[in-house]
């Protein structure tokens, strides 16, 4: 048996990670490696981004694309992680599903915020305005509001078990917004350009822009994965502290603690 499997006793199923202690051990082993890969991808992605030529129309502002587009993709990916976690709560009742959903929300909100801000900064020189209420921008702003609403819901209901089901239902209702964001540029006339990478007829970006974009997207995805594991670990620890505090308070009430 390899060193890793002997330490964490991995079984080939998601059920193997249902035990938070086993999950924490896995995170402890994985995190340093994930950081190495993430940092290497960011170095490669930034080098490619700044080595890319200027766009004939956009000039150097095309470099904003290499940070704006991955932010938007990861913001939507984070939401899909929350959707699968919500199904984990409602259907499979996996013990870590609610932890995963709650841990992804602030990260998703931060990436959505970044997508909005970098898009706005890119829009000013290219469109002549910081903001327009077109379908793509508005639906993406709605995503940020959904994230903030979910964070507020989790904060409002202190007991994690009581918050899990309403939050999961809220997440599944909010999932309607994800295809709206994706297809808004096709369904309505928008100032925002149509999709140029994920298209049925292939990407329309030239390779000197596509490569830096894809490497940066990979770097952002790895960063999200790494941060998600960190925030899941933090959430497990928060629940342990809370549970210990409640147990201690109950014992004190019963006079069992001196």
């Amino acid at each position, binding site marked *: 048996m390899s060193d890793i499997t002997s330490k964490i006793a991995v079984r080939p199923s998601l059920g193997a990670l249902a035990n938070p*202690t086993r999950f924490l051990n896995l995170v402890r082993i994985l995190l340093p490696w994930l950081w190495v890969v993430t940092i290497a991808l960011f170095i490669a992605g930034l080098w490619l981004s700044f080595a890319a030529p200027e766009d004939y129309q956009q*000039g*150097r*502002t095309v*470099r*904003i694309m290499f*940070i*704006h587009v991955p*932010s938007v993709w990861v913001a939507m990916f984070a939401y899909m992680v929350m959707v699968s976690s919500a199904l984990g709560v409602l259907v499979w009742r996996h013990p870590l599903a609610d932890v995963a959903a709650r841990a992804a929300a*602030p*990260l998703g909100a*931060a990436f959505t*915020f*970044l997508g909005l*801000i*970098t898009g706005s*900064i*890119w829009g*000013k*020189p290219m469109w002549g305005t910081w903001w327009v209420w077109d379908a793509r921008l508005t639906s993406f702003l709605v995503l940020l509001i959904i994230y903030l609403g979910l964070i507020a819901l989790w904060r409002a209901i202190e007991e994690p078990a009581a918050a899990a089901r309403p939050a999961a239902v809220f997440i599944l209702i909010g999932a309607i917004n994800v295809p709206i964001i994706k297809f808004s540029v096709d369904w309505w006339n928008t100032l925002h350009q149509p999709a140029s990478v994920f298209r049925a007829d292939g990407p329309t970006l030239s390779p000197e822009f596509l490569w830096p974009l894809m490497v940066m997207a990979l770097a952002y995805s790895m*960063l999200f994965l790494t*941060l998600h594991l*960190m*925030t899941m*670990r*933090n959430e497990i*620890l*928060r629940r*342990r*502290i809370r*549970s*210990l505090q409640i*147990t*201690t308070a109950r014992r004190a009430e019963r006079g069992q603690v001196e």
Partner: protein
Amino acid sequence: MSMFDDKYFAYVTSSYGITLLVLAGMVLWARAQFKSRTAKLDEMEKLGITRRSQKR
């Protein structure tokens, strides 16, 4: 023309700067939370408040 003379310089640097701040902020926030929570658990353990699985 140098990069600094470019009329778009402020837009590119501000977008990268804000991105760096937000990404670094997320990392620092996650690390700070981990440190404070492990410190809290250690403190509770010293007071004898432990989970059943930790009791020997």
